[in-house]
């Protein structure tokens, strides 16, 4: 087998790397930090020994929480299959138990079921197990479980792995966006290097990270965020190289209308006014306006600050007061710097948006998708794809209807997808017994210019009905 002399170093785990731990079907994103206890599936260990090993290595957890690399056994999975196959033939003779074999169970695990749930499945779905081989079966499962519980695989983070992790562990944090639905979004959105993409999401930063991965550090991404600040935990788990971050902009949605109206003043020194701190030279109305908006919605990190300052209460009052005074001063200083940074960021993001020539728009949030889409679609160039996710169908029906009325988009399509995994084993091939009930809904389409070709850009829009006259029943 040829090896064209690739440098291995980029394939090895380094300290500080964001990695994903895997055991069976369970994933967890962590950062490699030396001498730091990591808890994974109720077991703790240190990741120190992972440093320097290749990504994809499986480790045994040995006494003292030390990791010990395990050599990959090439034929492990097929050996498993054969072993199970042999036992299974006996179960088949028993009349019923082929319906939930050990392999089924393993596959169930692969599909995201926890051990407890699997045992329940066992009891509920296949009491033939109990009739004859209950003890052996449980023993086997325990053995299997144990096997998984003692090993952990260290994976390089990727959209695939993180999307499956979030869907399996914390679907509520990502609006129940299923991995295959996310896959559709990235493809329908034509997300690729060199484009300018707008992302509005409340999916823990997973969607943002997925978009950035597909852009590979080329082009620009603007995260349109609601509330106090952009959420990025999910994106950070991707462990992107630092230059990726240079392509990422952020823009608080409470300034969207001002920007669209051309009244957003990003030159102002105190664009952010979440506290009562004096800032003497406020003078123009625009600023007041944006300040108001800020104080209402865009107050960054106030909660975090509260948490920091609410320590220590009564003793040694004098010295403390002094320190508090000092802290406040420092914090004031820090705040100014932060605000200046924020102003610059806002200006940069506004500059990216102002041309209204973005190449893609990806929306996946707990907000009503209709006003979000109708507001943000204005930033897209003509002939560009957009895709909106919602956990529910009804809001997207509204979205579809409003967009048809308003015009400016064609090829509208409301879809969802259906995914089913299979157990593929000799003489025991069938779909996995449990499947996901739903993965959410997508509305996708392509923008078109709303003005007539030879006219100026500000000509009034025609009524949608006229513009859509060529189309059949549902599409523009």
């Amino acid at each position, binding site marked *: 087998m040829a090896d064209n002399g690739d440098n291995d170093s980029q394939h090895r785990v380094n300290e500080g790397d964001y990695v994903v731990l895997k055991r069976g079907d369970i994933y967890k994103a962590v950062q490699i930090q030396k001498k730091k206890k990591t808890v994974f599936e109720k077991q703790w260990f240190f990741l120190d020994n992972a440093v320097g090993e290749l990504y994809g290595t499986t480790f045994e957890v040995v006494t003292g929480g030390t990791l010990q690399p395990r050599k990959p056994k090439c034929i492990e999975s097929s050996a498993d299959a054969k072993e199970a196959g042999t036992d299974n033939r006996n179960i088949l003779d028993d*009349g019923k138990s*082929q319906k939930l074999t050990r392999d089924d169970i393993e596959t169930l695990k692969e599909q995201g079921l926890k051990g407890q749930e699997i045992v329940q499945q066992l009891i509920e779905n296949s009491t*033939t197990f109990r009739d004859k081989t209950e003890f052996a079966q449980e023993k086997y499962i325990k053995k299997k479980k144990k096997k998984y519980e003692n090993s952990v695989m260290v994976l390089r983070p990727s959209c695939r792995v993180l999307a499956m992790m979030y869907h399996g562990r914390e679907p509520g944090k990502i609006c129940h966006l299923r991995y295959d639905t996310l896959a559709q979004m990235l493809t329908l959105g034509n997300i690729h290097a060199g484009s300018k993409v707008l992302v509005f999401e409340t999916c823990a930063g997973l969607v943002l990270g997925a978009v950035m991965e597909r852009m590979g550090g080329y082009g620009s991404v603007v995260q349109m965020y609601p509330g106090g600040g952009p959420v990025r935990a999910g994106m950070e788990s991707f462990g992107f190289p630092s230059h990726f971050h240079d392509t990422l902009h952020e823009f608080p949605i*409470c300034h969207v*209308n001002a920007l669209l109206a051309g009244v957003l003043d990003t030159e102002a020194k105190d664009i952010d006014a979440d506290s009562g701190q004096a800032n003497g030279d406020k003078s123009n109305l625009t600023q*007041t306006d944006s300040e108001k908006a800020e104080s209402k919605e865009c107050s960054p990190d106030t909660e975090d600050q509260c948490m920091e300052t609410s320590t220590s209460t009564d003793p040694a009052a004098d010295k403390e007061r002094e320190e508090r005074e000092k802290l406040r001063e420092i914090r004031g200083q820090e705040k100014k710097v932060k605000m200046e940074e924020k102003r610059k960021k806002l200006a940069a993001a506004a500059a990216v948006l102002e041309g209204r020539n973005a190449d893609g728009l990806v929306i996946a949030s707990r907000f009503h998708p209709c006003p979000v889409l109708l507001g943000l679609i204005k930033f897209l160039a003509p002939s560009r794809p957009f895709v909106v996710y919602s956990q*529910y169908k009804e809001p997207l029906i509204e979205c579809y209807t409003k967009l048809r009325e308003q015009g400016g988009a064609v090829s509208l399509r409301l879809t969802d997808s259906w995914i089913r995994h299979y157990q593929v084993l000799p*003489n025991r091939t069938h779909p996995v017994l449990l499947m996901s009930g739903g993965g959410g809904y997508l509305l996708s389409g392509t923008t078109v210019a709303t003005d007539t070709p030879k006219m100026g850009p500000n000509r009034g829009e025609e009524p949608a009905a006229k513009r859509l006259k060529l189309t059949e029943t549902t599409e523009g």
Partner: protein
Amino acid sequence: MSFVEYSEFIQEGDVAIIFLGHDSMMPVKVQQGAQTQTRYGVIRHSKDLIGQRFGTKVTCSKGGWVYVLHPTPELWTLNLPHRTQILYTTDIANITMMLELKPGSVVCESGTGSGSLSHAILRTIAPTGHLHTVEFHQQRAEKAAEEFREHRVGHLVTVRNQDVCKEGFGVTGVADAVFLDIPSPWEAVKHAKNAMKRQGGRVCSFSPCIEQVQKTVEALADEGFQEISTLEVLLRVHDVRSITLPLPDFGSDQPLETPTDTPVPSNASVLCKTTTPPRDMAGHTGYLTFATKPSV
């Protein structure tokens, strides 16, 4: 009460279904003097059940209350003691229609298992049909026969304890329909054919694995069965929900003169009726293979 005839009032010896709430039920055998413990307290059969109308509310000892329902094959499927993996209503419904069962049909079934399908078949073929059900496992066969008697459908069914692949159904030329739910259905295809009427009928085989389907289809074709068709049915449940969707605050689009101009409050939201799927659903039960035995 019987599984093939409704009664208005609960009587001694009946099976009743105690409905405790969403997806929470339990079957009881009604007996003079007996008591049943529920999470809402004790139900005293003599006082609380016997003589009451099916479908009425029964107050338990702790003050909570439950509904007492008349058994149906579908409620039984949800409440029966599992001696084996069972068939559920979605598959049963399709089996019943595709086998063209109706009052008077003579049906052969193997294996009896926990009797989930058997009760549904009996309901449909009563009062003039008959079910010949074959169960390999002796205890299961005995238990099933006992249940059929208790459920007052014993006169409609013959339970046989034998290996259908070796000994067949114990009847010849009488069945309008045959149902197979065994590990090697292809070994019973010949027996199925023998059990069926000379003028033909319908057969169904239920198998979880595609390899079983492949072998069975081949065996059916070899035995001259026609209209061979394999299908799969899944039930999707839609839970009705009211959801709240927050509206985004895009701020003001003009320099405001007075601070009293209030923009959309940031906590604005709309309420919406929708349905959500359960997080997990049954992704597979088994493949259903149907075929017609032509008349000869």
